[in-house]
């Protein structure tokens, strides 16, 4: 039972407060992903958990023990860095065995543990090479191997895949997810890439400007973003936001007007809205329909991006706003075509002027699903 608890954690560099009070509970064996734009403090938060950065205020508990004042080695964590941070003068074997050697384990046991990790990571043929003679993916594996041999309570990853090419990134992503289910370890993973966050996490922690915007399962964040920032950050291409007005307020639903005269009714809780209030309508590109829907928006196609399976169109609508829509890859749509994009009320999000989302009347059935069920053992 290894959980990581952050209680009102703060970090200031000089006068600049970078982490402004973070409360978070990462459960045993959870794969938590910190995600957010560059500079939001993800790495700083992770480095505080690792013990590489002192904690200015608040309590950090690992496995029920307050570890604020423990050294990195005493916290029972292992970390994988973005630049791999391998020791260049040591062979792969020595890189992986370094922590065990420092811990003065018997030679035979070091050998056994290193070989075991090498077997898991398919590094056996490379054990006597120096890091310089390895490819990026292999180096990454060694860095992970170095973490594995320590048998840590918590694995920490700081953007470990950013230096790899796209194909390798997908492969390593799968391997790390597998590793998580094989080791049954608690893992904390930092990335700025929302696709990595969505695919790997049990729990996503969205950070912005040193505060947590929302914590939840990937689909919870996707279907029930707490505010406009999370809605825009999760999902690709990013969500469309349309400034509009409240047309009607009913029990458990709100009707808003659409550019060009239509309207759509979203099943959300109204939170005391009045007719005529300003409101932002959010709808994801993949939820815009080429035809049909509960409400329609007229537009003119500005750009067409064909990916094969899907096509992204960027359409100009009334009020000089642009909408991105993901439509069928076989659609013959051309630039300058007039399009009618349909919305269905169930996929619409409404944000009040303070940026907060109106709560959906019904929870999405998959919002509570655990990624653990999507990886075979």
């Amino acid at each position, binding site marked *: 039972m290894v959980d990581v608890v952050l209680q009102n954690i703060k970090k200031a560099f000089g006068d600049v407060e970078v982490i402004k009070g973070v409360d978070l509970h990462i459960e045993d064996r959870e794969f938590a992903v910190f995600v957010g734009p560059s500079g939001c403090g993800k790495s700083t938060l992770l480095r505080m958990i690792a*013990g590489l950065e002192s904690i200015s205020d608040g309590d950090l508990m690992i496995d029920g023990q307050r570890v604020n004042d423990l050294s990195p080695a005493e916290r029972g964590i*292992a970390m994988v860095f973005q630049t791999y*941070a391998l020791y260049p003068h040591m062979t792969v074997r020595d890189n992986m065995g370094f922590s065990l050697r420092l*811990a003065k384990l018997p030679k035979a046991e070091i050998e056994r543990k290193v070989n075991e990790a090498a077997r898991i990571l398919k590094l056996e043929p490379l054990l006597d090479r120096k890091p310089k003679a390895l490819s990026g993916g292999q180096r990454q594996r060694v860095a992970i191997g170095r973490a594995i041999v320590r048998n840590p309570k918590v694995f920490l990853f700081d953007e470990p895949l950013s230096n790899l090419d796209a194909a390798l990134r997908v492969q390593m992503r799968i391997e790390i997810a597998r590793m998580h289910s094989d080791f049954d370890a608690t893992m904390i993973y930092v990335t700025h890439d929302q696709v990595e966050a969505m695919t790997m996490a049990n729990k996503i922690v969205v950070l912005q400007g040193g505060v947590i915007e929302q914590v939840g399962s990937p689909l919870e964040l996707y279907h029930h973003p707490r505010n406009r920032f999370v809605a825009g950050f999760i999902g690709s291409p990013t969500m469309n936001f349309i400034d509009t007005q409240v047309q009607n307020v009913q029990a458990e639903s709100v009707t808003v007007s659409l550019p060009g005269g239509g309207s759509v009714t979203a099943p959300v809780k109204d939170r005391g809205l009045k007719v005529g209030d300003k409101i932002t309508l959010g709808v994801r590109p993949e939820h815009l329909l080429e035809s049909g829907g509960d409400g329609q928006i007229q537009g003119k196609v500005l750009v067409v991006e064909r990916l094969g399976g899907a096509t992204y169109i960027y359409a100009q609508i009334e009020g000089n706003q642009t909408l991105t829509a993901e439509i069928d890859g076989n659609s013959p749509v051309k630039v300058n075509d007039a399009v009618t994009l349909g919305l269905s009320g169930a996929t619409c999000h409404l944000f009040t002027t303070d940026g907060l989302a109106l709560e959906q009347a019904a929870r999405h059935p998959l919002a509570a699903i655990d990624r653990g069920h999507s990886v075979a053992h």
Partner: protein
Amino acid sequence: MTTLANQQMTAKPAKNTREIDTRPLLWPSVIVLFLWMIVPLAMTLYFSVIRYNLLNPMLTGFAGLENYTFLFEDPALWTSLWNTLVLVGSVLIITVVFGTLFAVLYNAEFHGRGVARLLVIAPFFVMPTVSALVWKNMLMHPVNGLFAWLQSLVGMEPTDWFTNYPMLSVIVIVSWQWVPFAFLILLTAIQSLDQEQKEAARIDGAGPVDMFFHIVLPHLNRAISVVIMIETIFLLTIFAEIYVTTSGGPGTATTNLAWLIYSVGLLQFDVGYASAGGVIAVVLANIVAIFLVRTVSRNLQQG
């Protein structure tokens, strides 16, 4: 087709201009350097096989290997070679050890680091004669020196450094001048050490001592090789410090090869004999250079 042909036509002259022979442009400097080296070397070789003593103009003619035979039978040669070895070896060890320690120390953040670094580097900017004079007259002087005064404070008899510990004194002076060089090179090398590597080591449980021996020192490996190579070349010809302080003495206690050649040629005016010594020095320096360049380049390639 036509565009392709055109491209080839235009490509060809372009290639030719790039292939222009640039070697003639190097010739002036190559020639100057060659003359600069070959003329003195040829003259030294020539003088080393003739009888040539400035005090005895009647003594002339081809001497064959006579100068060399005398030289090799002269115990002063072997003493001077040994002294050279001791001097170079000790200074290398001292400068590398202290250079590394200072580099590690002054890489840490502390108040007034800039000034402290400047002070460590300062001796390098003092010319050898001046620094030797400072040490001789202000620090190690048995009557006026700072060390003598310190010793008298605790009731000790002042030490006459240059009489009792001549080689040690020279080693101390030369080391003082060369620690800054080692420090500078090693400091820049330490600064290039990847921070994440150190952090990874901290997570792996490395304390300051493990960090130094397992991470920092291996990282400095190449830089230390470079320091050793460059210093050796300069230290083989140490002269000014000896000239100013001990004049090779007492006896031959601080006579290195450079001083031996000087004393034979310009104190005893036996140019032929000194030239033979010079040739030995050239041969030795080349052996050391080849040996060092080999090891260092192997080290650099590995790193």
